[in-house]
Every structure is written in structure tokens, then in C-alpha cells.
């Protein structure tokens, strides 16, 4: 503990709340409240309404939600498979450092540029993907692979080598060690990584703005389109839809994780 006088402690806590609440909690509160408000140009919103949700509850917005979820799930699976594979294969290899650098690179490159590069690369045969949903999914997969790879690598570093050594000394083949020992032990980290990938993909806007075809419009683009034409309140309702879906999936994943960890 850093301060011992009760008065100083109270003062610091007050300063903390004065900074933390408006800066971090308020934005979400505001978006959620606005999505339920008729008008808001005072301290409090003017009236409660579900109109914005009714407005977004038609097929268009639900299509966007489905698009986002499908994109996020596919991209997460691709990223997890690639990232985990690379992390496992790089173990003990002399190329390990190089692989690690290669796989975190997408974090350092601006997402917009990742979008641009896919546009440049896949706009002409033999890979004509421009204007398809595939190119959006690919972009998302590239962007989240880094996170999947990083968390699996970190989990592998923490994994006690005694487990695999014990399994190997009992005569298990490397494949059996992988499937029966390593993957089950990595399950909590894998599910955490899956949750993170899903959440990041759900909110991805930068690369998507470069790539989305008219028939594959994810939710963040919809939110932007709404606010861009001045429809702030329906935009807020869409944003709440996005946050709620993300939270639900994160919650489900953390449930699975606690179960896996307590086994």
C-alpha cells in the first residue's frame, strides 16, 4: 500500500473515479442509453423508445449481424489453426524467432494497408477475389492470426515440459503426445485466444472498409454508414447489437474456459 492516511487514500480514490468513470465507463453507458432515447441534447436523454431497435430489427441489420458473425467465426478458426500450427511447429526449431517475428508482423502493419494489399494482390487472375466475401474473411484472418499465435506461444512457454516428457517416456508417439497431452492442456489458452480473435474480428472496420462487397456488409460498416448519414441513434442501436453479441460470445468462451481449467 502506498498511502496510509485515510484522507489521502480517499482523495486519490476520488480522483481515480473522476477520471476513470467519465473516460472509460461513460462511452459505453452513453451509447447504450442513446440507443434507447428519442433525442438527447441535455444532461439526460429526452424520452425512452425502442424505435431504434425496431428500425434495425428488420432484415438488413440482421443480415449484417449474420455477416459479421460468419466472418468472425471463419476468420477465427483460420487464425487459430494457422497460429497454433505455427506455434507448435516452431517449438524447438532454430527458426522459432523468425516465425515469431513473421507472425506478429500483421499487428504492426496498418489494417488499412492489409486491406489495400489484398485488394492489389487479388484483383487480377489467377486469384480474382475482389468483390467476394472471401477477401473480407481473409483480411480478418490475417489481422487476428497474430493474436492467436502470440497467445498459443505464450501458453506453450508456460507449459511444463515434464508432461510431454512423461508421455513420451511412456512410449507415446509425438502425434499422440500432441493430441492427448498438449492440446488438452492448451485448451484454456486456445479458447481464450478464440474469444479474443472473435471479438477483434467483430469490431474490425479498417480493412473491411477497403474490401467489403455490397452483398457482404459487416456490422461495423453498417454502424459507420448510419452515423455518416447522421442517423446517430439507430447507429447506437447497431453498436449495442455489436457489443452485446461480442460480450455474449466472450462470456460463453470464458465459461468453457473455466470448465476446461477445473477439469
Amino acid at each position, binding site marked *: *500500500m502506498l498511502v*496510509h*492516511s*485515510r484522507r489521502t487514500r480517499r482523495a486519490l480514490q476520488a480522483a481515480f473515479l473522476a477520471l476513470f468513470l467519465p473516460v472509460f465507463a461513460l462511452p459505453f453507458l452513453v451509447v447504450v442509453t442513446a440507443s434507447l432515447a428519442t433525442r438527447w441534447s441535455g444532461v439526460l436523454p429526452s424520452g425512452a423508445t425502442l424505435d431504434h431497435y425496431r428500425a434495425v430489427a428488420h432484415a438488413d441489420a440482421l443480415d449484417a449481424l449474420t455477416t459479421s458473425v460468419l466472418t468472425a467465426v471463419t476468420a477465427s478458426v483460420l487464425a487459430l489453426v494457422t497460429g497454433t500450427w505455427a506455434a507448435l511447429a516452431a517449438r524447438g526449431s532454430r527458426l522459432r524467432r523468425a516465425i515469431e517475428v513473421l507472425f506478429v508482423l500483421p499487428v504492426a502493419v496498418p489494417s488499412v494497408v492489409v486491406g489495400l494489399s489484398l485488394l492489389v494482390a487479388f484483383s487480377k487472375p489467377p486469384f480474382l477475389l475482389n468483390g467476394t466475401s472471401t477477401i473480407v474473411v481473409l483480411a480478418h484472418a490475417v489481422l487476428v492470426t497474430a493474436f492467436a499465435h502470440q497467445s498459443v506461444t505464450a501458453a506453450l512457454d508456460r507449459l511444463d515440459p515434464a508432461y510431454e516428457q512423461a508421455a513420451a517416456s511412456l512410449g507415446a508417439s509425438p502425434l499422440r503426445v500432441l493430441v492427448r497431452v498438449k492440446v488438452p492442456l492448451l485448451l484454456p489458452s486456445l479458447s481464450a485466444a478464440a474469444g479474443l480473435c472473435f471479438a477483434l474480428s467483430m469490431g474490425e472496420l479498417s480493412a473491411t472498409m477497403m474490401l467489403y462487397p455490397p452483398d457482404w456488409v459487416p456490422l461495423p460498416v453498417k454502424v459507420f454508414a448510419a452515423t455518416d448519414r447522421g442517423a446517430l441513434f439507430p447507429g447506437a442501436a447497431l453498436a449495442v447489437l455489436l457489443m452485446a453479441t461480442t460480450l455474449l460470445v466472450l462470456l460463453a468462451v470464458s465459461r468453457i474456459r473455466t470448465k476446461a481449467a477445473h477439469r
Partner: protein
Amino acid sequence: MSTGIRFDGVTVTYGRTTVLDSFDLTVEPGEVMALLGPSGSGKTTALRALAGFVEPAAGRVHIGDRDVTALPPHRRGVGMVVQQYALFPHMKVDANVAFGLKARKAPRAEITARVAEALEMTGMAAYAKRYPRELSGGQQQRVAIARALAIRPGVLLLDEPLSALDARLRSGMLAELARLHRELPDITMLYVTHDQVEALTLADRIAVMDSARLQDCGTPRDLYRRPRTEFTASFIGTANLLPVTVTADGVRLAGTALDVPAGGAAVGAPATLCVRPHLVGLGEGPNALRGTVAEVQWRGATHRLCVDVEGHRVTADLPELPAPPPAGAEVTLHFAAHDAVLLPAGTHG
């Protein structure tokens, strides 16, 4: 300029748990007081209340003639040495030792002199320019002691200072601490430990703690010879604790009458008889206890006999026997009345 310490009914609670219960203790100026007890007994809490890191729910804490209960730690002027050393890892040894002097804005020349003096005193002068991570555990603890001494505190608090060291280093450091106290007789020391050897070796007096309460307090010799509770008897040294009943002319262990003065205890009252194993003899004598040998342990210089007497296990530590009795043999043990202490029953923690 000696400074004493006084705890006046200090109570500390965390939520609904009381971790220190109306604790009263006076430490004389220049005295070494050991707070001895198992973990969770409240001894560290008492030390932290004195240093100012926990706020008592009730009671006052005095250092010298100052009531420091409301003072923040940095104004209490106590030196502190903790188990994990807590040296600042990014500072060299001399900067660690100078930290307290700089915080007090001492003049630069004085800082240099006192740092040198403190390092000299702890035998660490040669290591002034090393980083803590380059030192062994024992050396780190010496630096921590030098750091605490550099501010010339009236009171030095030591919180399990030797428990992170291995056994051999520990006895060396114990002698070192005793020497430091001889050289600095004015410093009052409060020494928290769970190790009775440390307490017996170093302390002028020992305060025995258990279950958030002060159980017993006295000189090491006094506590060892004349413990006042079962807890003290079993925590300091080993003891045979036998349930007896007070009779008109002594006490009775089941069927065996023993000639032990019962003091003022009422006839028929239950009591606990405490005899140290090394004061129990083999063979006939006064206060004879007949029983069956359950176990014989050879311990080099001694033999330990575990004998079942009237359904109770009695341990005797005897000088090495040329022909120890085998397990199952019937033997007689005895002890002198003045080696036994009668304790109130049910005072175990």
C-alpha cells in the same frame, strides 16, 4: 536516547476477522523482544501496527513517549528488515543504504559517512557498488540490515529476517545479529519469528503469541523452565504434557499418585503436568512411572524412549544407553518434583 515501545490494547481486524486481539506489550529501551508464534498468530500484524502499515481498530501504539497511532509510517522513525530483503533492485548497494538518509534530506557528507559506517558494521563495505541481484541471500540480508541501521532508528523491527536463508547461514546471521546488538545497545529490537531457536538465542524476553492473542511473556529461561500455559510449554522446546487430577497430597495420573506440589489448586480439579523429556530418568526414583516401551530412537548422543504410561505417551531423552530396552519391554521412568510444572488444564491455544 533509548526508545521503548508500548502496545496498549491494540486490536486489528480485517473485515470480521480479528487478527490481533487487545494486545498489550511493553518493550524496554534497548531490549530485544522476540514475538514468537505459529503463522497466523498475529505476530506480524503487531509489528506492522507498530510500523504504521495497519491501522488498529482500537488501542494505542507508543514509541518512546510519542503516541504514534495516527502517524504515517514515514514519520515513525523505525528501521525495518523483512524476510524477502526488499532491496530496491535497480539501485546499487550504497544507493539502497542511502535511500532513507536521502528521504530525510541529510547533508551529502553525512550520507556518505553514514552509508560507509552502516556497510562497515554489517561487513558489506566491499560490495557498495554491486547490484542486489549480484549478491547471495545472506549478503542481501546484511545490506537490508545496513539500510535499516543507516537512519539510526531508535527501534529496529525484524520480520522473520532469517527464514529465507538456509540453516547454516541462519546460525551465522544469528550470531551476527547478536553482535550488532552488543555494538548498538541503545537500539530496541522487535524480532518476529516462528523459530524458537532464534527467539531463545537472541531475545532478552519472548512474547509468545497464538490465535491473535498474547499467550505468555518472559525471559527465555523463565518461559522454558516455568511455562504458564500448555501452548508455551509445547511451542518452546518439547514437553510431556500429562492430564492429571489434583489430590490432597499431590496429583494423580490415572492410577499413579505423584508427589508434585499442586500449589493452591482445589482438590479434584483437572490440571496438566509438564515435564521436559531430558529431565525424565530411567529406573526407580521419586515419582515413578511404569509403562511399556513403544519406540526407541537412537539420536547419536542420546536415546529417545517413548513409553506408554497409563495410556499416555511419555518421552524421555536419556544419555546414550549401553543396552537400551527393546520395544515392548516394561520399564520405570522417574522425575524430580522440582523439574515438573503444573499448568492449568485446557490452555493449549
